[in-house]
Structure formats: C-alpha cells, structure tokens
C-alpha cells in the first residue's frame, strides 16, 4: 500500500472550528491562548492534506505537531544554511541527536535544547525536566550520557525574583542530573535585564556509544511490536509544546502545562534501554518529549516510511478518565517508545521487569504510512505520519531590521571620557566581581561534576575536558553566546560565538569536530525577530564553513517574549572538540614562574557591546567586534600547531573583559602573579586593557622555546606582542610609562570569588559602584 494521503477515518464527532479546538480537546484550565494553536490558513492546509475534515482527536494532534516547537515552521528555511556534513559526521540534524565519529570505533551523540518557558513558570521542575529531556535524547540513540552542560540567562540578581528563579533552576538541574549520575561539567551563565521576565535554560548532553550500537528513531519491519515503557501517562504537561510556542503573559495559568520530573525513573530507564540495546532486539527507539505519544509515533513512522497503529486502552495511565486527546498529547516525563523485533518481546520484558519499569505493547508497525489510533476497538484518529511531521507548514516570514538598530550601533567610543590612570584597578575589580564575569562556583558546586570519574577539567575555566576510559583520547566541550553582541549585530554575534567556542577548544589542544546550537529568539511573527534570527544563522554558518565545523543538531526556541517585548536574540553554541593525544593538552593556567607572556592577535578599539562599557558606563551600544574569518582561521591553525610542537605552557582565548580579565583569571586560577608592560601604540589605554577584539590568545612560553614560537608566528604572518613575565603575588600592568593596574592576587580572587555568591549567602549587598570618570592629564 505504501504512503497514502487519504486515510479514511470515521469522524466520531462534529468538526469544530480551530478556534474551538482547545476548549474541546483539553482540560479547560491548561489551555494557553487558543488563537495561536492553529491559524485559519493552517486549518485549510489540514483540510487540503487530509482531503477531509479532521476530527477533534486529530486536530489535537495537529495543534501540537504543527506548533512552532515541534515543526520549526518559522526557522526551517533559515536552518538549511548550516553546513551539516563532514568526514566525522554519522548523523546530522533530523535524528534525536547528532552523531560524530570520535575514533577507536566510538561515536559521540550530542545536542542542546531549551526549556525556557517551563523554567519561568515553575523553575525547579522546568529546569529539571529540561535536563531529563536532553538526557533521553542521547540514550535514545543508544549512547551512554557522559556529560551535561547548561547555558543559563537570568535578569540582574539585585531583583529577588531573579535570585529565586536562579536558585530554583540551579537546584532543579542539580536535583535531576546528580540523581541520574551524569556529571554536569560546565556551562555558560550570564545576566541581563532582558531576561527578567523570560529566563533561558538550555541544556546540553553528550553520550558515547560503540558505532554499531547506535539506534535510530525510526520504526521499521511491518508487524513489529511497538512498546511503551517508563512512567505512566498523566495529565501533566498537556500542551507543553504549544505553551512553548507562545509568549509568557499567561504564565500562571500555564503551570499545569509544566511537566514534573522523576530522575530516579529516568536512571532506571537509561540503564534498561542500554541493556535492551545490548540484547539486539531493538529496531528503533524514541523518547516521548514534546507532544508526547503523538510526536513519538508520527516521527518514528515518518523516518522509517512506515505506519504505526496504537491502542490507547493499552497505555499505562496515572489517572482515570483521560480522554484520547489527553493521552496523545500528554508530556508526562520519562517515557520511551520502542520498536522491537517480532518474537523478541520476552527479552524486552525480562529487562523491564528487572528494572521494575511499567511497560506495555501498545501497537504494531504497519505498512500504510499512517498513525492510526484506536481506543479499544474504536478507531479515533488516522493521519498520514508525514502530514504531521515533514509536511507541516513552512513559513518564509518577513524580515526587517529594527528601527532602533541604527541608533544602537551609531555609538561613538569617543563620547566616553578617558578614565584617570588611578581608576583602572578599581574597574578591573568591578568587572571581576560582576556576576557576568565572577566565579560561578556557587552554581557548579551544586552539580556533581565528577561522577563517572572521567572529568579531567571540570567547571570554572570555560572548557570542560573528559577522558574516554581505555583510550588515549580526550573530549573537550564548551558553550558560548553573547546576547549584547546579538542585540547590536546578530551576524557578527553568530560568527563570534562559533569562533570564540572553537578558539577556546583549540587552546586546550582540541580540534573542533562538531557543533550544536540553541537559538533563543522572540516572536517570529515580528519581522525584527526574524531578521535577527536569519542574520545570526548566517553568521554562524559562515564561520562554521570557514572552520569546517559541521552543525549536527540543534534546537530553536521562539516566542521568548513577555508583554510584547522580545528578549535579546540569544544564540547559544555548543561545541565539541577531540584531543587525540593527551600529552598535547593544555589548561589556561600559568605553569611556572618566569615564563614569557605573549599576546597573539591584534587589539583594536573594539568596545561595542563590551562588559567594560556595560559594567562601568551602563552602555550597551556600538558595534560588536568584527570577526575576520581568514585571520581567525590562521590563528586557530597556528595555535594548534604550537601546541602540537609542545611550544606553549598555557593558552587562553580572550573573551569578554579583554586582556585585563584574561590576565586576572590566569593569575587567580594559577595563584601566580604577572608583570605586564604594554605598548599603547595608537589605542586608548582602557581599550588596550578591556577591548574585546576577537581572534586573540594569551599564551605563556618557556624562554628556551621563545625563539621557535616567534619563528612559527612570523612565518605565518601572525601579529603578536610580548607582554611580560609570570611570577610574583600581584598582577601589575603598565601601559606605556603609566602603571595602570597593580593588584594582589588575593584581592582579585576575593572579588572574583564572591561576585556571584554574595547574592545568595545572605551577606549584605554592596551598593553599585558609581562610574569613576576622570580626565587624563
């Protein structure tokens, strides 16, 4: 029979107008603004594709599957720009996670995903289930999860509501990840007013498998049984996907749409699924995340070009009286849908019994290309799988630059008076203690970052490094995203995020092998939002192509808005690197006293969107640093080469805060001072210290190797300057003949250490420091 569009189905009820669907199909209290569920045009498209009116159950399925969250209908045309192939890529986007070859017969599966809306409404559970969902995406592929990272964005911590949200989100991530036994090894946290009413919680997970053990989320083999396993289905999370596809004005009413996590069941499910794959009976597997059973059945059927028939009467239920619609779109957590080989049901049963998991054979794989749903003997829905998934609407929404864009970027740095030379030490301490740059120890101490004993470098220095037991290779991970840059120039923000992540990995000796991203944007119905999304994707794609880094998975989170205001565009890049020989790995920490400190790369007066302007002058304006892809690529190559040749003792990619912050952090992390003398040349001393020019690396080198390093850099025409030496108990920075910074490490460490934790440890909060502006004589 094959694919057929005209699935005949007896319509059990009247066919409601889409505006009525929500009320008709769902529990009244959980309904988000119904107007956004399906548009009139989308309803017409359903009529067109089905060749008939859908019944109420089918309409409920469409409303979740065609939501922005599941269908990517606004972003799909732009996402095609990403390069998705490469010699290591085994699965690119389209599967539950991207899969890349990491050598020795092993592969890594990884992905990042958002859980923003639930985390604002119910921060503990929202964040916890975000972690649960991404872990399932990884073990669904047959990979054992070995690392979690998270990117978090909150409003300023002076606001108690933001402190509450952050405390609960962190507790939720800890409560879930720690219990499942997957280490949370790193992340990226920052703060901005724009996130006060719409915090961001993006969770990244990576797992490892033998190449032959990878499982796809596709159904196949007509007649094979379809098994439901895991938690029972309840009414929690109904319409979670649609909630995530609307703004946050009605957040309180949406509380029941947030799912509740049970990490204990997740751990059992993880072990059971991996054990089951070991028996060889698994054909395909998919977790039930957004849009629950509807999404799992339709995507598995569509990917395998088959049909799936399920009986709702066989689904294990948590509560009585659930309607077919509720069972189909419930987002109860910790549930999997597994297709096993016919005749091997007993093997599967033995594994689930061992792990005390609820399970039920709820259906079979069919040959008609349709998702067919019965309730006992009564057929309640029958829809071609591709109509729900790959044939969902795709929009080319209008794009337009925001009107304020020109005002924002036209800012001239000359309008900022030159600070007095005595104020730089204070500025550096202010930056070090600002929550954006301060130590995140208060956060990561709540995460078990060591379980599984693979953590070579844990959280705290921007890159996490994990070993692969039994093999001589290491994996490095980092997350990166700068929303101030995105506000000012989405293209360069995207490109800078890719370059920044890649350079940070390269400074550990890792070669970037794959990328994932989470695109957190506002309302796609606004042309300004789509403009930023499109440009941001373009910037990331251009950088990925230039550095040959494939994008293998990702997630788009739209409608991050409250009361008509979008968040700043926030693309988050997650990148994975491979260190093939651990002897060539480095940490951004000074190794010994008396080594030469060199800045590789060029510092320009690039202060737009910098933390210096934001923290000292409360300005978020100007043009963000303009990345030159050719220069960045040359730098990446020369750094890798220098590390391979064993020339470097340490390397640190420069990030927000510029040279001054990089030096201060190196001093703090290594408990060793540095004596710096910078030639100011043509730029202002404050730019020399705090400019955020990209493509710069701070390295230390033993005097004996200095000549070879210089020769290597000269041969490649790389700009560099010798800054000074490591040693002592203070950081001193002289610009020209003026001493600008002179700070004991202990003082910097105290500022850095307490900058974030002071908001949570009940200590009195210092008043914000007034900007110190003085004329330079």
């Amino acid at each position: 029979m094959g694919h057929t569009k005209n699935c005949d189905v007896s319509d059990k009820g009247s066919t409601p107008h889409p505006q009525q669907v929500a009320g008709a199909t769902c529990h009244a209290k959980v309904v988000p603004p119904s107007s956004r569920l399906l548009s009139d045009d989308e309803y017409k498209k359903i009529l067109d594709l089905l060749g008939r009116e859908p019944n109420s159950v089918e309409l409920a399925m469409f409303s979740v599957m065609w939501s922005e969250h599941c269908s990517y209908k606004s972003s799909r045309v732009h996402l095609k720009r990403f390069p998705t192939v490469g010699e290591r890529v085994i699965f690119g986007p389209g599967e539950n996670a991207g899969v890349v070859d990491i050598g020795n017969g092993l592969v890594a599966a990884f992905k990042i995903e958002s859980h923003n809306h639930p985390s604002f409404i119910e921060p503990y559970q929202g964040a916890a289930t975000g972690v649960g969902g991404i872990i399932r995406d990884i073990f669904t592929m047959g990979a054992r999860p070995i690392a979690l990272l998270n990117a978090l964005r909150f409003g300023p911590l002076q606001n108690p509501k933001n402190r509450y949200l952050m405390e609960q989100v962190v507790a939720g991530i800890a409560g879930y990840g720690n219990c499942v036994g997957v280490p949370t090894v790193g992340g990226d946290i920052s703060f901005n007013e724009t996130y006060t009413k719409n915090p961001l919680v993006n969770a990244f997970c990576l797992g490892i498998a033998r190449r032959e053990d990878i499982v796809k989320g596709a159904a196949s083999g007509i007649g094979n049984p379809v098994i439901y396993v895991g938690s029972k289905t309840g009414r929690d999370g109904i319409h979670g996907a649609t909630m995530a596809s609307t703004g946050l004005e009605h957040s309180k009413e949406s509380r029941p749409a947030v799912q509740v996590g049970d990490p204990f069941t997740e751990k059992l499910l993880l072990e059971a699924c991996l054990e089951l794959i070991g028996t060889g009976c698994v054909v395909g597997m998919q977790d039930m995340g957004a849009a629950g059973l509807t999404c799992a059945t339709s995507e598995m059927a569509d990917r395998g070009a088959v049909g799936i028939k399920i009986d709702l009467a066989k689904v294990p239920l948590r509560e009585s009286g659930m309607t077919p619609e509720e069972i189909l779109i419930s987002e109860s957590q910790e549930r999997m849908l597994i297709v096993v080989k016919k005749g091997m049901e007993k093997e599967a049963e033995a594994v689930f019994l061992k792990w005390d998991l609820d399970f039920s054979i709820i259906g079979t794989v069919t040959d008609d290309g349709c998702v067919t749903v019965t309730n006992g003997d009564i057929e309640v829905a029958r829809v071609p799988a591709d109509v729900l998934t790959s044939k969902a609407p795709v929009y080319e929404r209008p794009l337009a630059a925001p009107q304020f864009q020109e005002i924002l970027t036209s800012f001239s740095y000359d309008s900022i008076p030159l600070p007095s030379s005595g104020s730089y030490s204070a500025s550096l301490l202010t930056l070090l203690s600002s929550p954006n740059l301060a130590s995140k120890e208060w956060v990561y101490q709540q995460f078990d970052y060591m379980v599984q004993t693979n953590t070579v470098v844990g959280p705290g220095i921007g890159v996490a490094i994990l070993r692969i037991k039994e093999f001589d290779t290491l994996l490095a991970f980092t997350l990166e995203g700068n929303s101030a840059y995105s506000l000012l120039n989405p293209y360069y923000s995207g490109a800078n995020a890719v370059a920044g992540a890649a350079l940070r990995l390269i400074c550990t000796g890792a070669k970037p092998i794959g990328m994932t991203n989470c695109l957190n944007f506002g309302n796609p119905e606004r042309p300004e939002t789509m403009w930023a999304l499109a440009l941001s994707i373009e910037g990331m794609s251009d950088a990925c192509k230039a550095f040959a880094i494939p994008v293998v998975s990702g997630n788009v989170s739209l409608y991050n808005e409250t009361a008509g205001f979008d968040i700043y565009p926030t693309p988050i890049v997650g990148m994975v690197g491979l260190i093939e020989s651990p002897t060539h790995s480095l940490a951004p920490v000074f190794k010994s006293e008396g080594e030469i400190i060199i800045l590789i790369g060029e510092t320009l007066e690039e202060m737009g969107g910098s933390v210096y302007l934001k923290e000292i002058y409360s300005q978020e304006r100007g043009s963000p640093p303009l990345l030159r892809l050719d220069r960045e690529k040359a730098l990446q190559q020369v750094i890798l080469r220098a590390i391979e040749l064993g020339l470097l003792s340490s390397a640190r990619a420069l990030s927000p805060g510029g040279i001054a912050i990089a030096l201060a952090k190196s001093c703090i992390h290594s408990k060793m001072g540095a004596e710096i003398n910078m030639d100011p040349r043509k730029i202002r001393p404050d730019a020399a210290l705090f400019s955020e020019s990209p493509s710069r690396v701070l390295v230390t080198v033993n005097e004996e190797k200095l000549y070879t390093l210089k020769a290597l850099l000269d041969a490649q025409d790389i700009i560099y300057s010798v800054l000074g030496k490591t040693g002592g108990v203070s950081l001193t920075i002289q610009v020209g003949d003026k001493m600008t910074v002179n700070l004991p490490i202990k003082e910097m460490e105290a500022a850095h250490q307490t900058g974030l934790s002071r908001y949570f440890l009940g200590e009195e909060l210092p008043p914000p420091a007034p900007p110190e502006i003085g004329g330079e004589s």
Partner: protein
Amino acid sequence: MRFGIIVFPGSNCDRDCQYVIEQVIGCGGLSGFTFGEPPMPPHPALGRAEPDPRAPAVMPIWHKEEKLPDVDILILPGGFSYGDYLRTGAIAAYSPIMKAVIEHARAGGVVLGICNGFQILTESGLLPGALLRNKRLKFICKSVWVRVENSKSILTSNFTNGEVISMPIAHAEGNYYIEPAGLQNLIENNQIIFRYCNLHGTLTESANPNGSLDNIAGICNKAGNVFGMMPHPERTGDVWAQPAAPLQHTVDGIRMFLSLLQNPSSFRFSLETA
C-alpha cells in the same frame, strides 16, 4: 581478594568503584570497560583463585539477589538509591540483598559504604548515627581535606595518624549526627576514621562542609569491619580523573583500597578461622 559491589536501583558510583578496583589497582584490562552495558561480571579467567592482592576480582551484585556470591569485601557505592525518596538510604536498607549484607558483616566480613552507601549502612543499623541534610541545605560537590583519625583500621593502614588527605565529596545529606552518648562511644572505641579539616589538619568550622557533628567524615563499627564515609575514595583513584586538575592531583583513594588489599584480615575466611 574478591570485591562485591551492591547495585541498588539508582546507584551511580558502582561502575566507578569497579573501574578503580579492576583497572587501576587490578591487573588492568581484565574485562574491559564497556559502554552502554550494565556492570560487567568478573572475568571468568579469575575464578576463585588463591587470594592474590595483585589480582582482585569484582562482582556487581544486583540488589534483588538474596544470597551473596563468594566475596570478601562488600562495597555499597554512592548514588541515589531509590531516588533518595522517603529518606536517603531508607528504602535501600530493605532491599532483599541487605539481609545477606548484614549477615556478612556479623560474620566479620568487611563492608565499606561510600556516600549513599554510608547512608544505607546507618539506615540498616550496621553503623550508628544518621546523615542529615547539609547545613546550607544544598548539594555540595568539591574536593575537601580530611584527617586520618585512626590509621590502625584495615581501611587506613596505609596512612599515618593525623595525616591530611584530599578526597571529593558530592552529597546533599552528609551532615553526620549522633546523640551525645553515641558520640562518646565512637570516641572511646576509636571508631572515628576521618574528620574534615583544613589543609594544615586543623578541625575548623569552615573546613566542615556539611555541618557534621565533631567534623566527622567517616566512621567504623565497634568490631572494625564495617566502614562508612561521605568522601569518595574512588574519585581520587587515578590521576586522569581529577576535576581540579591541573592544580590538584591526589591518589589518596587508591591507598585506601590498597590498605584493604594488603590487610590479611580483609579476607573473610582468614577472619572466620582466626
């Protein structure tokens, strides 16, 4: 020497313990580390050979078993048995295997509970006291300093009294409590094995991460064969897996497992015949 590692539903340090014993202090490459599979049974080539400190065998033991295989030392690993529901360790204390664990301990066999394993041992009455919520109420993961208080025990014979060693902790309920008379007994019988301290070995409040009474980090029973500790020795098992690297490398955990291996009374049978 044969180790048994009890695997409860929700245990998550079982493989880490197995790895350290098999791959780090064992012969190396015995069974191979496997991804995506449940803990491996011991390599058949090992059999029940003559006890040989250089070739320990490790057996994961599923909590639903009612009998123990032929093992000398039992490890109750860290994790979140039964999701920490009800109270940490409370449900696991009633797992079918626990009767056999208690019998093993009563017969003089060595039992080591790490983190959640310590919680299970106090819940099952094999060790006195209780582990309460940390004083700041949050999960804490970091490396801490502990002082060896009793180097005569079979777990710590590789150390000297008062030696300061480093191990990581990772728990939300590690705040040890015992009533005053019980504390007096622990002190009099030399049952306190580790105390949280600062780098210089001084017992301070700020060095006590979770509010434990008397800075207690690890204890043993009166007979000296059942041990419970909140720090994770298996996480300092080998230099690669040091999260604080490159600043802090220790292998203090290894020395603890080696103490067990090198100590004749770790062998169940030598104990019984003694």
